[in-house]
């Protein structure tokens, strides 16, 4: 018998062998009868030193247990599953992580909404309105945005900000854009429908046929001036 191997076996018996070496030796130990017998004798030596008198010495218990388990199906935990178990992971932990992430996302959205809505109703949307108006009213203007914004009135068909209804400003604007753009390409009968009429008839807007037939201008993202 290889003395180095036996020395490793002795250290493994004491749980003093590095894990990588344990893996290799455990594989050999489970198959090598001589090695297993030596392993059993190491256990007996310890039992003798500890004066464990009521102890079987001939390995009959191991034989009986092995015989009793011979009819049992072998366990079939795959290595990945065993590794996950070894690391303490359970099936519910990934789900818990996903749930936590979703919870954080919901709280963040609610917080952002609570922070943004009160003050944003008359800040963000007017910028959008002014920009569209400026671009639409003077498409060839290349001057500073400040000048364009100052000289052009917000006579767009876009819904102006309504401070009394801050919650509806952004959705209403987008809805109005969609409805008017849709009307430009729809049948004449449908242009005069109730919703379009409501949109274009709000105070401060213009609904001249020439303008309403133009395609909806694209939003300029760099404008920051509010209409007066």
């Amino acid at each position, binding site marked *: 018998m290889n003395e180095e191997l036996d*020395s490793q076996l*002795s*250290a*493994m018996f*004491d*749980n*003093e*062998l*590095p*894990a990588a070496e*344990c*893996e290799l030796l455990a*594989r050999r*130990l*489970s*198959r090598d*009868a001589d090695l*297993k*017998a*030596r392993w*059993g*004798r*190491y*256990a*007996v*030596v*310890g*039992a*003798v*030193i*500890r*004066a*464990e*008198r*009521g*102890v*079987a*010495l*001939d*390995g009959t*218990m*191991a*034989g*009986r*247990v*092995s015989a*009793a*388990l*011979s009819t*049992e199906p*072998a*366990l*079939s*935990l*795959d*290595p990945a599953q*065993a590794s996950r*178990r*070894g690391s*303490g992971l359970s099936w519910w932990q990934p789900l818990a992580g996903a749930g936590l992430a979703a919870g954080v996302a919901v709280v963040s959205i609610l917080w952002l909404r609570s922070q943004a809505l009160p003050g944003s109703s008359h800040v963000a949307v007017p910028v959008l309105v002014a920009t569209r108006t400026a671009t639409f009213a003077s498409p060839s203007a290349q001057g500073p945005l400040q000048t364009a914004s100052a000289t052009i009135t917000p006579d767009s068909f876009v819904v102006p900000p309504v401070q009394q209804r801050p919650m509806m400003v952004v959705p209403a604007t987008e809805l109005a854009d969609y409805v008017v753009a849709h009307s430009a390409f729809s049948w004449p009968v449908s242009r005069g429908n109730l919703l379009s009429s409501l949109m274009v008839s709000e105070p401060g807007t213009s609904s001249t046929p020439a303008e309403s037939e133009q395609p909806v201008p694209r939003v300029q993202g760099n404008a920051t001036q509010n209409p007066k």
Partner: protein
Amino acid sequence: MSADASDLSLVRRVQRGDKGAFDALVLKYQHKLVKLVMRYVRNPAEAEDIAQEAFIKAYRALPQFRGDSAFYTWLYRIAINTAKNAVVSRDRSPIEYNVDRSSTDNDESYDMQGRMKDSETPEGLVLTDEIRSTVNAAIDALPEDLRTAIVLRELEGLSYEEIAAAMGCPVGTVRSRIFRAREAIDRRLREVFEGGLGRTEELG
């Protein structure tokens, strides 16, 4: 180095279907388990039966073992529960024996001898006086450094690092001394049992 790496490597093999690895775990812990169970039952043969039942329960429960605790801790819990259930089912009162390592060996040996006289112990099942004297003689014949190392390990349960600190030598030297001590004792035991000691060829 994990304190439970050896057991865990065997447990993982069992979980992957290697029953032979479970034999190694039984061989390693059968004596300790019987000793533990004998705190609850009188008869060593009965204690063996309970320990055997505990091993079988442990095997069946191994798929649920995650390694959160040491294997032997988990196994001991199963053995204790099995022993308690056996005591309850047989309407016997548990007997508390003082088998703490801190107690003296002579007291423990005396108690165990007295108990064995009252029980029907199968011949050859337990450690006989002849075996005990053989092992004691083997230990006495060991060089001082080997004897100290093996006693600190087996009797006091110290780790290699703790033994190295106590003996003022490297951990590798401790490992070598313990191995050589075991081999020397094992040679004497094999002479007594004519090669029959630790006979496990029929396993795995």
